[in-house]
C-alpha cells in the first residue's frame, strides 16, 4: 500500500507484529536500545504458538552449558547445523544464528525476567558430527502467573503443557511414569506456577510490562504502508475500524506461519495436515503482507510436522486437541505401520524428520502411502509406559483400538492383516537378534535417551503379548517454516535480493534458517527469538537514523 496516510493514529519507532517469543523479544530489544516499541497481537491473548509450546530454546554455546561443564564450540555447532540445513539455508544465516543465539540467552538472563534451565535432551540428530548429547536445549524455570496482575488472564493457556513439568521430567516420564513428580506438580499448581511455554511467555510479558511497552490485543495487522519504497507503518484492524500506525524504525513481522490457512497449505506444503497444535490465528497474515511488498520467499514447502493424534471428545476452545505421539512410537513393544501393514521408518527418529516419511508420495498408488499410519503396541507397552494421557494402571480408553489378535486388530483399523502379521513377526525376530537391520531403530542417541533405560534395549521390545492395540496417526503441525527471506540483520529481502527498508521478520513467519532440519528441542523458538533479538536491535537503530 503506497502511503496516502495523512493522519496517523499512532506513531512509534518499532512495531512487533505478534506476541509470541519472537515478537516479544523484538519489542524488548528495541525498547532497550532506546526505541519506542509497540506489540500488536491479533487475538485476545498473549503468547502465540510459544505460549502453547514446551517453551524450550535450542541454542548452541549457551552459557549454561559452560556452567554445567558441557563443552561446545562454534565449529561443532556450525558443522552440525549446516549438515541439517542440507544447503537450503544460506551459510551466513546459519553462522549468524550460531554467533548470536548465545548472546540472546545471556542478554535475557541478565536483563529480563527470563530464567533458563539446562535440559539434558540430546540434539535431535545426536549422531551427526558436531551434535551434543545434551545442554543446547534450554527450558524455563517455573513462573508464578499472578505476578502478571491483570495480564494473568490474558496469557494464552496451553492445552497440552498446563501441568507444570520441566522438559526432562516430561520426556523421561513417558518411559518411567512413576518418575512423574505428582506431589511436586500439585505443589507447583497450588502456588499458581506454570512451566513450559507459559513460563517463557509469562516472563517475557512481565519484562515488557515492567518496561511499559504497550501491547495491543485484538489488533490485526493487515497491510504494510509503503512510502517511497520504504515500509513506514501498518494498517491495523482494531475495534472494528482501520487504524494506521507509523513505525519510524521498522515493522518486525513475528506473526507465525500459515498452517491454519487451507489455501496456502495446498499451495505450498507437500502433504496434508490433519490438525495443528498452534493457535488458529496463524493464517499467513505476515506472508500476505510481505508478499504484497515484493518479498522473496523461501523454504515454503517446510513445516514443523509431527505424527499426532486427537483424543475423541477432547477439545480446547472448541477445537480438537492435537497430541504429540513420541513415546508411543519410540519405546519398546511398539512399531509403526502403514495401511499395507508394513513398517516404513525408524520410529524413534525425531518428529520433524519422521514427517519426511509420512509425506512419502507413492508413484504406484499415487497417494501418500504412509498416511494415516498406526502405532501397533501390545499389553507389555500398556503395562509399563504412558500412552498419551493414560497411565499403565488406568483402564483402556475407548479411543484406543484393542483386539486379542493382530489379525483382528488389523481388520478393525483397516490395515492389511497379512502385512501386519508378517511385519510383527519380522520385528520380533529383529528384537531377538538385538538389532533393527531394516530401519535402524534404537541406534540414535536421541531416541535412546528417551527410551526405557531399564529395558534390555531402550527402544526394542517384542510385540507378542495380547491384547494388542492400535493408535491411528496423522500429520499434525506446530507451524510452517517458510516465508519471506531475510538477511543476517533480520531485514526482509525482495525478489531481487535487495533489502525492503523498514521491514523485518522473525520466527515462523520467515524463511526458516534450519531448512528442512530441526536442530533439537526448542529448535523453532531458539531460531525465532534469535531473529527477534536481531530484528529488534536493528529496527531500533534504524529509528535513530
Amino acid at each position, binding site marked *: 500500500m503506497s502511503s496516502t496516510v495523512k493522519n496517523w493514529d499512532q506513531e512509534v519507532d518499532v512495531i512487533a507484529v505478534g506476541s509470541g517469543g519472537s515478537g516479544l523479544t523484538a519489542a524488548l530489544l528495541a525498547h532497550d536500545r532506546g526505541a519506542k516499541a509497540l506489540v500488536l497481537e491479533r487475538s485476545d491473548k498473549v503468547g502465540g504458538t510459544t505460549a502453547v509450546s514446551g517453551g524450550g530454546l535450542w541454542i548452541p554455546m549457551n552459557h549454561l552449558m559452560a556452567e554445567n561443564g558441557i563443552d561446545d564450540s562454534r565449529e561443532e555447532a556450525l558443522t552440525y547445523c549446516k549438515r541439517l540445513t542440507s544447503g537450503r539455508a544460506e551459510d551466513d544465516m546459519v553462522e549468524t544464528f550460531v554467533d548470536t543465539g548465545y548472546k540472546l540467552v545471556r542478554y535475557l538472563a541478565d536483563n529480563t525476567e527470563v530464567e533458563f534451565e539446562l535440559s539434558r535432551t540430546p540434539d535431535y540428530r545426536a549422531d551427526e558430527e558436531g551434535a551434543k548429547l545434551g545442554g543446547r536445549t534450554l527450558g524455563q524455570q517455573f513462573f508464578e502467573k499472578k505476578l502478571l496482575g491483570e495480564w494473568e488472564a490474558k496469557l494464552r*493457556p*496451553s*492445552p497440552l503443557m*498446563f*501441568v507444570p513439568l520441566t522438559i526432562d521430567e516430561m520426556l523421561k516420564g513417558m518411559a518411567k*511414569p*512413576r518418575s*512423574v513428580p*505428582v*506431589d511436586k*506438580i*500439585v505443589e507447583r*499448581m*497450588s502456588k499458581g506456577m506454570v512451566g513450559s511455554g507459559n513460563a517463557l511467555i509469562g516472563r517475557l510479558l512481565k519484562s515488557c510490562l515492567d518496561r511499559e511497552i504497550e501491547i495491543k490485543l485484538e489488533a490485526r495487522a493487515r497491510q504494510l504502508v509503503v512510502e517511497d519504497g520504504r515500509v513506514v507503518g501498518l494498517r491495523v484492524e482494531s475495534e472494528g475500524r482501520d487504524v494506521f500506525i507509523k513505525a519510524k524504525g521498522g515493522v518486525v513481522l513475528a506473526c507465525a506461519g500459515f498452517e491454519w490457512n487451507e489455501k496456502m497449505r495446498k499451495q505450498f506444503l507437500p502433504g496434508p495436515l490433519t490438525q495443528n497444535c498452534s493457535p488458529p490465528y496463524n493464517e499467513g497474515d505476515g506472508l500476505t503482507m510481505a508478499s504484497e511488498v515484493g518479498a522473496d520467499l523461501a523454504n515454503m514447502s517446510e513445516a514443523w510436522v509431527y505424527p499426532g493424534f486427537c*483424543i*475423541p*471428545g*477432547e*477439545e*480446547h476452545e472448541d477445537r480438537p*486437541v492435537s497430541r504429540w505421539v513420541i513415546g508411543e512410537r519410540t519405546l519398546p513393544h511398539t512399531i509403526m505401520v502403514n495401511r499395507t501393514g508394513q513398517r516404513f521408518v525408524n520410529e524413534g527418529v525425531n518428529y520433524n524428520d519422521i514427517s519426511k516419511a509420512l509425506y512419502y508420495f507413492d508413484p504406484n498408488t499415487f497417494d501418500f502411502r504412509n498416511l494415516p499410519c498406526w502405532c501397533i503396541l501390545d499389553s507389555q507397552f500398556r503395562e509399563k509406559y504412558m500412552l498419551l494421557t493414560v*497411565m499403565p*494402571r*488406568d*483402564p483402556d*480408553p*475407548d479411543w484406543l483400538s484393542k483386539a486379542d489378535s493382530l489379525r483382528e486388530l488389523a481388520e478393525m483399523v483397516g490395515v492389511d492383516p497379512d502385512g501386519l502379521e508378517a511385519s510383527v513377526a519380522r520385528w520380533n525376530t529383529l528384537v531377538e537378534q538385538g538389532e533393527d537391520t531394516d530401519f535402524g531403530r534404537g541406534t540414535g542417541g536421541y531416541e535412546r535417551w528417551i527410551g526405557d533405560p531399564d529395558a534390555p534395549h531402550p527402544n526394542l521390545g517384542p510385540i507378542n503379548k495380547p491384547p494388542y492395540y492400535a493408535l491411528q496417526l496423522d500429520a499434525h503441525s506446530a507451524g510452517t517454516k517458510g516465508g519471506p527471506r531475510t538477511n543476517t540483520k533480520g531485514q526482509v529481502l525482495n525478489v531481487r535480493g535487495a533489502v525492503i527498508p523498514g521491514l523485518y521478520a522473525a520466527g515462523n513467519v520467515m524463511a526458516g534458517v534450519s531448512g528442512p532440519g530441526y536442530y533439537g528441542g526448542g529448535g523453532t523458538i531458539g531460531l525465532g527469538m534469535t531473529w527477534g533479538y536481531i530484528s529488534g536491535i536493528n529496527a531500533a537503530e534504524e529509528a535513530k537514523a
Partner: protein
Amino acid sequence: MPEVNYTAVMDITRPIVWDFVRDMNNWAPLAKGYQTHEILNDRESIWTVKGEVGPISRTTKFHITITEWHEGERVAFTLKGLNESITGEGAIMLTDRGDSPGTDIRGEATLEFGGSMGPVLNQLIGPWVQQGADELVTAIVTTLQPTYVRPSRPFFLVRWAQSAWRLLRSGVAAVFGSREK
C-alpha cells in the same frame, strides 16, 4: 478431592420444587456440560457430560446411581466414569424456608479423579465442579421461578452480610428504640 455446594432460595413451595426435581429428565439437561442421558431404570442412568479439566474439555460418560430418596426432601447419587477413572457423589436437598414461604434448594457435589495423575487433575477440576453446582441449582430455580435473580456475590457473602445487617439493626434498635412514633 473438590467438594462444592451452592444454595439458592426460592419463592416456591417445596412440593412444587420436589415435583420438578424428582424427575431427572426435568433437570438433567440443565447440568453444566450436559450432552445426553439415558435412563436405565428408576435408580440408574448413563450421562454424557462435557467437562473442563484446566484448558481442555473432555466428553465423559458417567454411570449415575441414586443412593438416597427421601420423598420431598433429598435425592442423593453416586457417579462413576465409564471412560475415565473418575468417581463422585452429589445430592439435591430441599428445605422449607424458616422465616417466609419458599424453599431453600441446595446442591452438593464431590468429584475425584483416580489413577496416579489424580491429584494433579483434581487441582484442575475444582473450579468447573463449583461452577457446575452453581449453574445447576440456578438453572433449576430459574426454570421454576423465571423472576429469580442470582446473587451477584458468592451466596455465603450475601448471607453473611444479611445476618450482619440484621444484628446491627437490632443492636441500634435496642439502644435507641424504634424510630416509629
